[in-house]
């Protein structure tokens, strides 16, 4: 037993040593993101979750360092994946308390990326593990997979355009696993025939949940009142 323990500890230390230079890369990415103190952007949000029927909605996105984030929809209601803070990259690597480990390379949408595993040092952290696919020459995170304690695993895929120099994406595709959703008919007072409803739901259920946000008209570092972030 003790031997196994030692083995694991030793193994981890060896990875740690290997991972040192990755921390530098992550810090560089972070520095790039840190140019942006705040931004405001128009967006289009598309929700594709099996049990949600929502139209594409116009949204406004606000961000302020270090981790203030707000997505506002006209009409007031938006459906977001749990742990909505993760919708932006900056908050994923907001802290310095992580261990960054190299995990090879991969191609995301035609771009070769370094795979970096971020392990938070703080035991209480909600995030268990984040895998970043970093486009090293441009210092852009192309893809991030975050595993949380409570809310499962999320995947973010980012496409960059005109605001790449700030590390701000043009489009973020957020994918996650959805759990079952079911309310008793007694509560919803629905009498409709079950078969139909079930097959509909089944058809939709085969998919993973996806939220897609397209950003446009960034206004960067023009200052944003804190009041906007108060819900």
């Amino acid at each position, binding site marked *: 037993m003790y031997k196994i323990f030692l083995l694991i500890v030793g193994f981890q230390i060896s990875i740690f040593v290997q991972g040192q230079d990755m921390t530098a890369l992550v810090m560089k990415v972070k520095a790039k993101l840190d140019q942006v103190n705040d931004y405001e952007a128009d967006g289009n949000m598309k929700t594709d979750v099996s049990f*949600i*029927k929502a139209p594409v909605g116009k949204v406004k996105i606000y961000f302020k360092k270090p981790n203030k984030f707000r997505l506002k929809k006209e009409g007031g209601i938006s459906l977001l994946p749990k742990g909505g803070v993760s919708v932006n990259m900056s908050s994923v690597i907001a802290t310095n308390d992580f261990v960054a480990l190299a995990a090879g390379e991969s191609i995301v949408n035609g771009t070769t990326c370094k795979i970096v595993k971020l392990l938070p040092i703080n035991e209480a952290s909600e995030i268990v593990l984040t895998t970043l696919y970093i486009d090293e020459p441009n210092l852009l995170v192309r893809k991030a997979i975050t595993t949380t304690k409570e809310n499962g695993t999320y995947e973010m895929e980012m496409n960059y355009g005109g605001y790449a120099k700030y590390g701000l994406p043009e489009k973020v595709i957020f994918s996650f696993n959805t759990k079952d959703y079911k309310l008793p008919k007694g509560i919803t007072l629905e009498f409709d025939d079950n078969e139909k409803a079930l097959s*509909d739901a089944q058809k939709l259920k085969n998919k993973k949940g996806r939220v897609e946000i397209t950003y446009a008209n960034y206004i960067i570092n023009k200052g944003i009142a804190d009041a906007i972030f108060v819900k």
Partner: protein
Amino acid sequence: MLTLIQIELYKIFRRPRTYIAFGAIAALILIIQFGLKLDGKSYSDFLMKDIGGSMVIDGNIINGYLICYIMLQLLLVHVPLLVALIAADMISGEANMGTLRLLLSKPYSRTELLLAKFLAATVYTIMLLIWLAILALFLSMWIFGLGDLFLMKSSYVVLINQNDVFWRYAGAFVFAALAMVTVAALGFFLSIFAENSIGPIVATMSFIVFFTILSTLNIPIFNVLKPYLFTTHLISWKEFFDLKVNDANEAIIGSIQNPQRIITSALVLLLHIVGFVGGAIFIFNKKDVLS
């Protein structure tokens, strides 16, 4: 005929009983509004506690549109009673009061009289729904403001854009009026058989409760019956609040998931109205008035 309808309306709206219904609706709605205004947050927290464990709702779902939906859902179960209170009393009440024999010895055919009475009951029903719309929809819109309508169905949730909601309510209220007129027709039909008001009122409600239970129960034998029960169709106004989605699972603004279902239900209800009123006229014309 017009005179007859005017007289029937005059009789309805001169009776204190008529205003019980308007009062009851006002009281219920105002209490719900008051409660939600005071403690809407915890109610919405309760509603939103968990949608599928992986999604959260951002924004305030408690707005005028949602309140109206909640109230329609609640009240459309009780409104039939208020409709029956008058409709099931149209003939039996006169028989009970002893005025029926005098009324029928006036120079109008029984068919005319019944049609006038039914139309008067219909006007009452529609006014009740207009009252409901004023309080549940417009007052709620004024008190709670506008916003997107977020609805939880049994196997999915629907988010309807703010500017895509109002026409749905217009449709829903028109449909609800049709549904309530069907209830009125049932009560009216039953009222020709009795010489007291309580019997037909209770009978109407019992019918509705009984068939609603059959409509709700999920037992295969009853499922065969469901499409033929008018109670199944009474709540088809909800179909206005379901959106179609495209292949990318985006809800299509301005769409209705099952427009055919609304049309079918409306036709079934219309058929019931014609059946009940026609039956009432047919039977009543043959009837000896002994009250």
